[in-house]
């Protein structure tokens, strides 16, 4: 019962009921119109026949008087399938014709009978109901009355046949429509049920759940598909959020503990002013590093969340590359690293200068940090070129590189290779670059330095759009 009520509540069923109602009203109007038309047509025919007959009778009367009229009526009355004929005395007594009795009062008024009247023919078996007829009554100058009419049996039968077949045809249509609508409504209801079951599971926390897609590619499927891709996005954002909170728990607690220990040690110690001062300065430095890590984490999750992080416009990638080189050239120089560029001019992409600049300086920073203390003379090249599928901004060095099987890992948050733990850094640099590239519809690729088969080549690939 509850299911039925639910079914009644579905849009398809409600629309069906509305259509059904309208359709039924139209059908009723149609039935009335057609039968009315049929009967007026039949009445017209009847009148025509009766009038023709009267004309003939009139001729007989004019030529031979009442006796000839009666003779003709008598003759006509005997013909099979004859019309109704009656000639009656002024007092109403029937003198000739084929009518045994009439509904009283029919012969009292001259002209067309206003509505069908009942009569009995001669030789009609006893007990059968009287027939209905329409007739015209004429008063002769001597007061006698002549009635010519036509039985309504045939037209009535025809009319009711038309009516019945119309009603039956419309009835079949209505029932058919009802059944079809019921089936469609049920189907829609079942699919919606499945969608709402899936979404309840999702609400219960199973974000991996997806809405069912039937594969027919109809509007339900399209809706489910777009909701599914929305769910996918939510799931990955949620995953990112979870990862961030795990990371915060793991990687921010460590420096916080260190900070706390340092404060405790300073308090517990018997040191004087300058030592206190030194401890304080160390603590400020430590908390600055914490803030830096925290900012980087927030930045990554906001960049990954995508929307409204930054305004995107056409930016000159070549200029950004030159700016970064210019910013880092003295740093590289001081670290004993030779920084060279191979920048194609006039390359523009849609993006955010600040973010791309930050990503690129992160890569240059890394390259300087990791190649500087190698035995061989360190070299870094910043290159920008137009590839077949888009622009590629790369930073390659001849440092130790990253083993092929770890290249995917280092992009994850806080992942640092064991060899690099001694270096300053948050372990978030490459994650940020990766997130920024994803925001720009591109990607970060890590590779060995192709020319020298050692070192690292980090490529920021801006896919050509459209």
């Amino acid at each position, binding site marked *: 019962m509850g299911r039925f009520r639910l079914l009644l509540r579905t849009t398809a069923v409600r629309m069906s009921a509305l259509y059904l109602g309208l359709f039924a009203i139209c059908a009723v109007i149609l039935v009335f119109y057609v039968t009315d038309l049929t009967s007026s047509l039949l009445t017209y025919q009847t009148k025509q026949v009766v009038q023709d007959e009267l004309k003939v009778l009139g001729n007989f009367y004019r030529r031979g008087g009442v006796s000839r009229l009666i003779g003709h009526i008598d003759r006509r009355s005997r013909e099979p399938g004859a019309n109704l004929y009656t000639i009656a005395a002024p007092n109403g007594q029937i003198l000739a014709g084929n009518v045994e009795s009439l509904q009283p009062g029919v012969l009292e008024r001259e002209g067309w009978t206003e509505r069908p009247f009942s009569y009995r023919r001669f030789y009609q078996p006893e007990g059968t109901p009287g027939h209905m007829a329409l007739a015209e009554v004429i008063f002769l100058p001597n007061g006698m009355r002549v009635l010519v009419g036509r039985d309504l049996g045939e037209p009535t039968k025809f009319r009711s046949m038309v009516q019945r077949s119309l009603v039956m045809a419309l009835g079949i249509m209505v029932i058919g429509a009802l059944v079809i609508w019921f089936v469609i409504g049920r189907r829609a209801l079942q699919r919606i049920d499945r969608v709402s079951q899936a979404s309840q599971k999702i609400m219960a926390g199973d974000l991996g759940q997806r809405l069912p897609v039937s594969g027919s590619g109809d509007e339900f499927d399209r809706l489910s598909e777009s909701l599914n891709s929305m769910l996918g996005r939510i799931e990955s954002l949620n995953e990112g959020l979870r990862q961030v909170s795990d990371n915060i728990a793991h990687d921010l607690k460590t420096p916080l503990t260190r900070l706390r220990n340092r404060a405790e040690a300073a308090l517990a110690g018997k040191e004087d002013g300058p030592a206190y001062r030194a401890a304080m*300065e160390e603590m*400020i430095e430590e908390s*600055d590093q914490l*803030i*830096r890590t925290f*900012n980087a984490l*927030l*930045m990554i999750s*906001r960049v990954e969340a995508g929307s*409204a*992080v*930054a*305004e995107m416009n056409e930016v000159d990638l070549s200029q950004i590359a030159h*700016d970064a080189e*210019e*910013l*880092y050239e*003295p*740093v590289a*120089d*001081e670290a004993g690293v030779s920084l060279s560029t191979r920048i194609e001019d006039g390359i523009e992409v849609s993006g*955010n200068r*600040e*973010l791309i*600049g*930050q990503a690129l*300086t*992160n890569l240059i*920073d890394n390259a*300087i*940090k990791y190649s500087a203390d190698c035995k061989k003379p360190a070299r870094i090249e910043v290159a920008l070129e137009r590839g077949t599928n888009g622009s590629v901004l790369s930073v390659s060095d001849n440092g130790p590189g990253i083993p092929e099987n770890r290249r995917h890992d280092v992009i994850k948050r806080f992942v640092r290779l064991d060899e690099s733990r001694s270096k*300053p*850094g*948050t372990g978030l*640099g490459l994650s940020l670059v990766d997130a920024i590239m994803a925001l720009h519809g591109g990607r970060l690729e890590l590779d060995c330095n192709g020319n020298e088969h050692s070192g690292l080549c980090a490529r920021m690939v801006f896919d050509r759009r459209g």
Partner: protein
Amino acid sequence: MVCFSSEYSPNMPDMKILVIEDDLEAAAYLVKAFNESGIVTDHASDGDLGFYLATENNYDVMVIDRMLPKRDGLSIVSELREKSIDTPVLILSALGQVDDRVTGLRAGGDDYLPKPYSFSELLARVEVLGRRKGMRDNDTVYKVGDLELDRLAHEVRRAGQRITLQPREFRLLEYLMKHAGQVVTRTMLLENVWDYHFDPQTNVIDVHISRLRSKIEKGFDKALLRTVRGAGYILKADG
């Protein structure tokens, strides 16, 4: 005792600022620290009081927290601007991303500092906003001691001797000279000379400064460009 200005004491007896901050502990610390740096400081703890004080008094700089009870920081700034009160405003915010900065500056703020900040950074920015020292905007030649910078000819001379600088070094020196006598921080330099608002991992600015320093000081006995520990740099002619 606040020790940020141990190597540098600003002489700004007549600078008066307004701090609108709802965190009372942070506000008390700011008022104390500003006062010790010689800056007269009024404090308002909510948006309405802050707006009232801002319209009734004449301040040199206002420091406004973005999230305040009763009236938020950005609407205070935009309403002040509507009333043609052009006092420089520094917006403090726990939000610090690129887009937040842009909305802050669009509302009419002159500078934007994300929390947590160091007081030395805030102090340096407030002093620069107050513009009680340094050059005027329409000066075409900046002079600090015997150092001269011609903004139109793009020439730098010290004691009449021509010094060749790279374009970026020129802009760096131009900014330092424009705010001569004031502490400028590394982030201020990165923002104003390089137009980057992020915190680079390595201290790239220090390297640029030391290059510039070697160019303008090598061969001259007087140092002009000094490092202020825990804060930034200051370009000064005397002592």
